[in-house]
């Protein structure tokens, strides 16, 4: 009986994994295709589409933009998110509970609506199709995550250790720099990694505010698919998945994912 149950549950898990990973596997296979259109299985194998992507100035420019924006967004998410999380966890002020719930509002709103709103604000401000504009738009998406992750990490730390440092003679800033921050490292790495990935993959908000002179990689990919379908799309998808996976793996290897998310 238990044997049968374990067989069923194992089969079930395998099926779920297949559903989740099959599309990615197909994309991976197609990326090595020698055909000039998307077909599965490919009739021949080659690396020519990888070469084509690397030689495509539009994609490479998009990649550079996305990478630069992602790094800046990750940095700003931390710099802005950490004090916010600290205030929401450690300080007592009127309206704290309300702000706590409002902070995650961008996560529950439809991205389309956010994008439209951002466009309405950015157009008169001259922020459309600029680096600062894209960074600001992405921050709307990443900050709730950063704040949430850092909030959890901070509340899991408790206050005893900081209070012990304080009674030993440490002023609040010394406590934060010498005691709180080092203990918060896993949360800092996790929130930065999430912000980096979210920004790099962001498409909906970007679509509203990119211009012909400033494109991100996901937008470039999206526009390309609109016109043509060749295995270059699969190559780009593989590259983007690899990058995200690499970041996740680095976090996992360096601190452990459970720890990073304050468990």
């Amino acid at each position, binding site marked *: 009986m238990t044997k049968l149950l374990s067989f069923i549950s194992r089969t079930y898990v395998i099926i779920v994994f297949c559903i989740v990973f099959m599309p990615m596997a197909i994309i991976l296979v197609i990326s090595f295709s020698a055909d000039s259109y998307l077909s599965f299985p490919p009739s021949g194998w080659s690396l020519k589409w990888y070469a084509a992507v690397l030689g495509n100035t539009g994609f490479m420019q998009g990649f550079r933009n996305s990478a630069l924006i992602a790094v800046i967004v990750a940095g700003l998410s931390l710099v802005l998110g950490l004090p916010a999380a600290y205030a929401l966890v450690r300080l007592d002020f009127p309206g704290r509970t309300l702000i706590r719930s409002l902070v995650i509002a961008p996560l529950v709103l439809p991205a389309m609506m956010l994008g439209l709103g951002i466009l309405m604000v950015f157009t008169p401000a001259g922020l459309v199709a600029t680096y600062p504009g894209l960074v600001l738009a992405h921050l709307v998406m990443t900050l709730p995550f950063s704040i949430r992750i850092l909030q959890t990490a901070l509340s899991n730390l408790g206050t005893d250790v900081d209070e*012990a440092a*304080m*009674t*030993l003679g*440490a002023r609040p800033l010394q406590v934060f720099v010498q005691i709180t921050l080092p*203990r918060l490292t896993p949360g800092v790495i996790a929130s930065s990694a999430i912000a980096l990935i979210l920004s790099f993959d962001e498409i909906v908000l970007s679509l509203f505010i990119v211009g012909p002179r400033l494109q991100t990689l996901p937008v470039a990919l999206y526009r390309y698919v609109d016109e043509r379908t060749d295995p270059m799309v699969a190559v780009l998808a593989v590259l983007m998945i690899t990058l995200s996976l690499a970041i996740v793996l680095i976090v996992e290897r360096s601190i452990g994912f459970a720890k990073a998310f304050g468990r």
Partner: protein
Amino acid sequence: MTSPAMTAHIRIRELTFDYGGDRPAVDALSFDIAKGEFIGLLGPSGCGKSTTLRMFAGLLAPTSGQIVINGEDIVARPPWERNMGLVFQSYALFPHMTVAQNVAFGLRLRKVGKAETASRVAEALRAVRLDNFGSRRPAELSGGQQQRVAIARAIVIQPEILLLDEPLSNLDARLRDEMRFEIRDIQTRTGITTLFVTHDQQEALTMCDRIAVMNGGRLEQIGTPVAVYDQAATPFVANFIGRANSVPATLSHLSGAPQLRLEGQWLPAPRAEDLPVGVTDGTRVSAMVRPHAIRLAKPDGGLTARVVRRVFVGSVVEVELQLADNHTLIAELRPDSDGAALAEPGAEVAISWRPTDMRIFAA
């Protein structure tokens, strides 16, 4: 007595913390602490003992009142300027530092020189018997060792007061007994005035010079362990520290030799000066007697009770007795005593105790 500031190291005056609940968490607490004293703050959870400790450390600002140390009110000072050593139940060590760095933390902030820091850290670690653990990380230590590091870290700064917040509660029973004596021993050697918060009466009785018993934010009694045990000032203290039986009675003959009317029997009452103030002939009171003070004998026309149960618990025999009016008493007898032999379930026995073993409280 030259000046009050010289007689008491610490004076607590009307210390109150009110966060707007039904009643203040700490309500007008006042008592003095002498230099080098080991004071226990004892009470059930929610009695305000930890709140008091946090006000001492500066982690909570009192609503009103004073904490005067060496003649100076420190209530307005931030925690980092109070020079207090605080030891938490959770140890609260710095996990990213070695044991030695943990202990050195307070000295580093005080800009103590390298050589002196090293020798003082070594000395503090020796005091808690962790000489060779300096280079370890807290995570590599057992709970008892971590607690000792926390104590070393607190005493190395030579604090004005050592504040211990339930330091033994996370340790297993055997280690807890060991640490009791160790903490007391360290405190005696260093002579640091210590405030020890606990809910465990056994810890308070065995460790403290004096015990401040708190209940509902108020100080019920402060005194030596013997005094709070033998001369409980309130029914709460009598019941919280050790076990106590309570029997309703009526006072009379207060002008001569005071008597107690209990269950239709006359018993000699304690001396008039040990009775609560304001009692008169006919005042209803409750008489408190410790289980070990009750003696059993063959019925002799005096106060009698029926034996309900007899339980052997090792060093003593516990006997449950029922009075005629259904009040229940617990007596603790030596297993080899005559009384224990008489205590057959269902038997009628005479019970008695010395007047001095009884505490009378207004009913």
